[in-house]
């Protein structure tokens, strides 16, 4: 396919000598350059503005929250109010706990599966791959009612345990799928060298492959962390009461149909977004590699 596209135009070589003074690749006319930068600046402004606006608003006194000035009497009062007068820290702690446990369990349970699916041919593999793929299309609507009822009958509603178990329905298939993608990028010769040296498949996995896959595991872990961190549907349905809520549910308290407290809302948004965004920007390069590798080679 690729060679075809490369040689295709070559046939017309004879007919195309009329070109005079060809512009060298990578060199643009000044006009094109300006156009390029203008479009990118516009796109960047649209991308950044909502986030930036929330940041700026959080630094204004609450009574000026909806003014159009970029900066107005900058103050940290929204943050101090948020931390002192609202259960924000409790929600933050709940979210942190739930997301961390989900990530830990998800990665722990699914790493060997990712490896087995990447390396071995065994009866049931195709079915398992399909299961992993299909569970990722599960709409929240298909599981939320039965899980809600099961949790209710087991007394796990409104507990972190219940929410972690629920999030594992998302995290486990996802982690297994993504780690398969990362294991696929590690050459098989390494496994073979392990067998030659007398290691069992488990030994090979544990001693040779796992250390090499650390970056991949870190990215998988990170991604399942932010998925749990940002989940809304289950958190809104399962968790009630100020002391049990996670951030996704808690933020809804600031903005509802009766009115909006933009001051604390924007301050909370900033505090939630900054750590996630920082780590994200560090990890994102590997993230896409892993996801597309897993998906394409599946």
């Amino acid at each position, binding site marked *: 396919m690729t060679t075809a596209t490369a040689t295709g135009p070559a046939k017309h070589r004879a007919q195309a000598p009329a070109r005079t003074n060809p512009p060298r690749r990578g060199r643009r006319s000044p006009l094109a350059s300006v156009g390029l930068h203008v479009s990118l600046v516009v796109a960047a402004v649209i991308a950044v503005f909502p986030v930036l606006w929330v940041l700026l608003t959080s630094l204004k006194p609450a009574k000026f929250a909806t003014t*159009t000035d970029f900066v107005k009497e900058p103050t940290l009062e929204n943050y101090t109010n948020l931390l002192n007068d609202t259960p924000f820290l409790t929600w933050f702690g709940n979210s942190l706990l739930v997301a961390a446990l989900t990530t830990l369990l998800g990665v722990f349970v699914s790493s060997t599966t990712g490896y087995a699916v990447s390396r071995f041919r065994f*009866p049931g593999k*195709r079915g398992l791959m399909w299961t992993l793929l299909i569970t990722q299309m599960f709409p929240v609507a298909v599981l939320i*009612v039965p899980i809600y009822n099961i949790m209710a009958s087991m007394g796990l509603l409104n507990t972190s345990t219940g929410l972690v178990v629920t999030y594992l329905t998302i995290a486990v298939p996802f982690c297994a799928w993504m780690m398969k993608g990362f294991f696929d990028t590690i050459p098989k010769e390494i496994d073979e060298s392990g067998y030659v040296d007398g290691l069992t498949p488990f030994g090979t996995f544990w001693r040779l492959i796992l250390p090499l896959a650390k970056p991949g595991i870190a990215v998988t872990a990170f991604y399942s962390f932010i998925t749990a961190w940002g989940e809304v549907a289950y958190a809104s349905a399962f968790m009630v009461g100020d002391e049990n809520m996670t951030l996704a549910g808690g933020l809804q308290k600031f903005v509802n*149909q009766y009115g909006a407290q933009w001051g604390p809302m924007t301050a909370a948004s900033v505090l939630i977004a900054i750590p996630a965004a920082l780590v994200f920007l560090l990890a994102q390069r590997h993230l896409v590699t892993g996801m597309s590798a897993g998906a394409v080679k599946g």
Partner: protein
Amino acid sequence: MAVDTSSQSVAKAAGDSARGRSRGTGKRNGGSRGAVRRSLSTHWYAWAMVAPVVLVIGVIIGYPLVRGIWLSLTDANERNVERSIGVNHIPASYEFVGVDNYVDALTGSQFVGTLGWTLVWTVACVSVTFALGLVLANMLNRKMAGRGVYRMLLILPWAVPGFVSVFAWRFLYDERRGILNQLLAGGGIDAVPWLNDPTWAKFSVIAVNVWLGVPFMMVALLGGLQSIPGEMYEAAEMDGANAWQRFRHITLPGLRSVSTTVILLSTIWTFNMFPVIFLLTRGGPGEATQILVTQAYKFSFEISPRDYAQSSTWGVLILVLLMVFAAVYRRVLRKQGEVW
């Protein structure tokens, strides 16, 4: 107990489908006891490695899924499911009603109407997101000053947790005091009811979802672009291909495998995109922006009495729709000679 059997059934289903493909060997394996033992001795470590996931999926996905399908065949609601009120334990009293719920959903106007808007929403979001992502990826793929900075800024919407961004947009969209309407007022334009008019609300939710989705598309496609060898462009240029021809005959074919994957993923994600609709409009005004997932959620958690049966029915229908879509998509790709 139930837990145990359902995990087995998943494992069995997995085994069945595998056998279905390579029928010949499957029968031979199943036939004699020695072959079973041999297969166990060759594959036991692979099976042991996948066992935790099979178990977990069976218990926490398989079992609820089976129960969800069962609920969709009953008349379960908040008043007749098993529940505890104080110390009294009330057993479930809902009854099997066959496929009545499905008949109701598919013949009534609500499901079909919601499905129509869900399809419009999905197609609009995915196509606009893909187009913008492709344009931006191509721009970023050129050598120029400040490329890293642009890239960083353009990725930002992806880096911020989705629900935070959605609240940020609600803040911008606020009809009386939001910045968008204040800016319009500055230009002498009347306030736009971003979230309170059915048509505008549809536009607004699509805009937010596109804003959220573009960075992923852009980064994925940029990765694809960078894997196309530069020599191919040079060769094409030597042969006199103009910019459009290079784009058409080198860039697009080179991006094929990446784009088919991201379009599939993004379609599924958009179809199921709960937070944007739920946090921005709650499906309103009226039911104008309600997509299938948010409507199913509403049935089970926002109306009274909670209609679990109907919600499960919609959930199962959504799942079936997505699976059919994925299967058709895959088949089409395969016909076109794609390896995936």
